[in-house]
C-alpha cells in the first residue's frame, strides 16, 4: 500500500528564492513523523507547501491525490489539517467559536460530539469555552489550535513547532495529548520541531532537514542514538 503522504523531489520557495531542494518524505497511515531542523532549514516552508499556502514543484500526494497546485481550502477537504506556527487561534473568537471554525469544511451533524471529545482530551478548554482565545495562556492556545485542527477530522495533521514559546512542562503536555490523539483516532501526524527530545519520544520516525534537503532519516530511536543528530539537536 502506498503511504498516506508521499513527497518526492519537492522544491518550494518564495519568489526567486528556493528553500526546499528536492525533499523525499513519507508518512504512513497512523504514524507520527518528526522533522528536525535548525532555524532556516525549511521546516515551515515544507508544511506551507504541503498545505497549499505556497507553490511547490515535484510531487506530493495525500492518499494518491496531488496537493501541489491545489488551494489551501481544497487540501483541507482532502483530509489535511495544518496548525500553523505561532498557534494561529482567532483571538477575538471564543474557544467554542474557534472549534466551530475548525469544523468549517464539514457539513455533518456530529460537530458537537466532536467538540466534547476534544474537551475530554483538553479539559482546560472546556473551562474556558466561552472565553475569547486571546485571553488564554500560550499553552492553552496551542491546545486550542490543535483541537481546532482536529475538528476538521483530518487523516493527516501538520504541526509547525508546537513547542514554540511554551514552558517545558506545557510542551510535554501538548506532546502527550498528541500521542493520545494518534493512539485513539489513528490520525497521522507530521510535526516539525526544534525540541528534538520530546518530539522523538512520541514519534515513530524522523527526518533531519538541513538547508533545504534531507540529510538523515530513520526510526525515532535511531535518530536519538545518532551521534551527529545528538550533537546538533539533542544537546548532549
Amino acid at each position, binding site marked *: 500500500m502506498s503511504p498516506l503522504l508521499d513527497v518526492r523531489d519537492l522544491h518550494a520557495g518564495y519568489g526567486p528564492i528556493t528553500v526546499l531542494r528536492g525533499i523525499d518524505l513519507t508518512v504512513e497511515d497512523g504514524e507520527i513523523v518528526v522533522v528536525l531542523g535548525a532555524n532556516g532549514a525549511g521546516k515551515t516552508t515544507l508544511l506551507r507547501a504541503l498545505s497549499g499556502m505556497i507553490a511547490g514543484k515535484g510531487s506530493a500526494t495525500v492518499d494518491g491525490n496531488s496537493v501541489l497546485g491545489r488551494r489551501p481550502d481544497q487540501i483541507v477537504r482532502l483530509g489535511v489539517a495544518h496548525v500553523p506556527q505561532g498557534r494561529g487561534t482567532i483571538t477575538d473568537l471564543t474557544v467554542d467559536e474557534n472549534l466551530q471554525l475548525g469544523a468549517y469544511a464539514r457539513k455533518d451533524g456530529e460537530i458537537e460530539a466532536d467538540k466534547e471529545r476534544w474537551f475530554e482530551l483538553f479539559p482546560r478548554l472546556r473551562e474556558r469555552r466561552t472565553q475569547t482565545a486571546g*485571553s488564554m495562556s500560550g499553552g492553552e492556545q496551542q491546545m486550542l489550535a490543535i483541537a481546532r485542527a482536529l475538528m476538521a477530522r483530518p487523516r493527516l495533521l501538520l504541526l509547525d513547532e508546537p513547542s514554540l514559546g511554551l514552558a517545558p512542562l506545557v510542551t510535554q503536555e501538548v506532546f502527550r495529548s498528541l500521542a493520545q490523539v494518534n493512539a485513539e483516532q489513528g490520525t497521522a501526524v507530521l510535526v516539525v520541531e526544534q525540541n528534538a527530545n520530546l518530539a522523538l519520544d512520541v514519534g515513530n520516525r524522523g527526518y533531519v532537514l538541513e538547508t533545504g534537503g534531507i540529510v538523515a532519516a530513520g526510526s525515532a530511536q535511531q535518530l536519538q542514538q545518532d551521534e551527529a543528530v545528538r550533537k546538533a539537536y539533542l544537546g548532549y
Partner: protein
Amino acid sequence: MSAATATATATAPAPTAGGLSPAARTAIKVVVWVAVVGVLYWVPQYFTPVQVGLFTKVIALAFAALGLNLLTGYSGLISVGHGAFMGVGAYTTAILVADHGWSHGAALVASAAAAFVLGVLIGLPALRIKGLYLALVTLALATLFPEVVKRYGDVTGGTQGLRVPKFKAPEATDLANDQWIYYVAVVLLVLSFVAVRNLVHSRVGRALIASRDNETAAETMGVHLSAYRVVVFGISAMLAGMGGAVNVWQTNFVDPGQFGIVLSITVLVAVVVGGAATILGPAVGAYLVVWLPNGDILPPAVMPDLILKDNPELIDLVFGAALIALMMLAPYGLVGGIKLALYRLKQRRAVAAAGKAPPGGGEPAVSTA
C-alpha cells in the same frame, strides 16, 4: 452521553460570572426590543417633517455604515470609498425613477444590485492588496465618482443634478410623505441589521473574523479567502447603495457634490465612532454624525444652539474636536466602550464572588461576535 447534557453541565458554573439567569436575560431582551421598536415607531409621530427628514438621513448613513462595518470591522478590509457606493445607489434610483418611470421600490432593488456589482469589481483588487494600499484604491473610487457623474451629464444631469419625483405615501396608509419614507426605510434598516447580525454569528461570520485576525489560520481551516473577500465587498457595497437610494427618497435630488470624499469619510467616522465590529455601532455612529453638526434632533441640541447659532462656521471645528475627545474617551467607539465597561464589571463581580483572580485574566480584545 448526549452532547446536550454535557454542554449544560459545562456551562452550569458560568452564571456566577454573568449574575443573570437565562430567563432574566430573555426578559431583558424582550423589554429592550419592545422599547427600540416603540421609539422607532414614535419618532415620526412626534417630530416635525424636517426633523423626520434628518432621521431618514441617519437611516441612509446607517445603511452605509452597516455595510462598511461588515467590510472593515468584521473582515478587516478598509474602504474609504463607501460614499461612491451610496452615490451609485442614489443615481440608479434617481435616473430610473426620474427618467424611466420606475417605482421607488423597484428602483431600490436595482440600486442594491448596481452597487453590489460595483462592489464586487472593486473587491477584486482586494484579493492582492490590503491595508493602506487598499485604502488608496477605494480613495481613488471616492474621488473618481463625482467626476464620472459630471462627465456623463446627459444621463446623470451633470453638475446641475437631477430632480427626482417624490416617494409618495399610498393613500390607504394615511401617512404624510416624510412619515411613510421614514417607516419604509427604518423597516428595511432593521431587517438589514438583523440579517448582518445573523451573518456575523454564522459559520460565514466566523470565517470572516478569522480571515481578518489570522489569514493563515483561516486558510488552514478551509476558508476560501478570495471568494469571501469578493462577496463581502459586494454585500457591503450593496448596503451602501441601499443607503444612497434611501437618501434620494428624502432629498428628491441628486448632484455630484453630495457623493464626494467627505461623504465617504463621514461613513467611516460613523463606523469608528459607533464602534467597529459591533452590531449596533454603525447605527449609533450614523446618529451621531448627523446629530453633532445639525443638532436639530434629540437630545435637544444644547451645544449647537448655544455656541454655534451665531457662528455657523465653527460647526466643523466643534465636530472635529468632539470626535477627537470621543475617541480618547472611548477608543473602541461608543458601543465598543460600553461592551468593555460591561465586561470589566462582570470580571470584577466574578473576582469578588470567587475571591481570587479572574480566570485567564487580561484585557479582552474587544469582543467582535
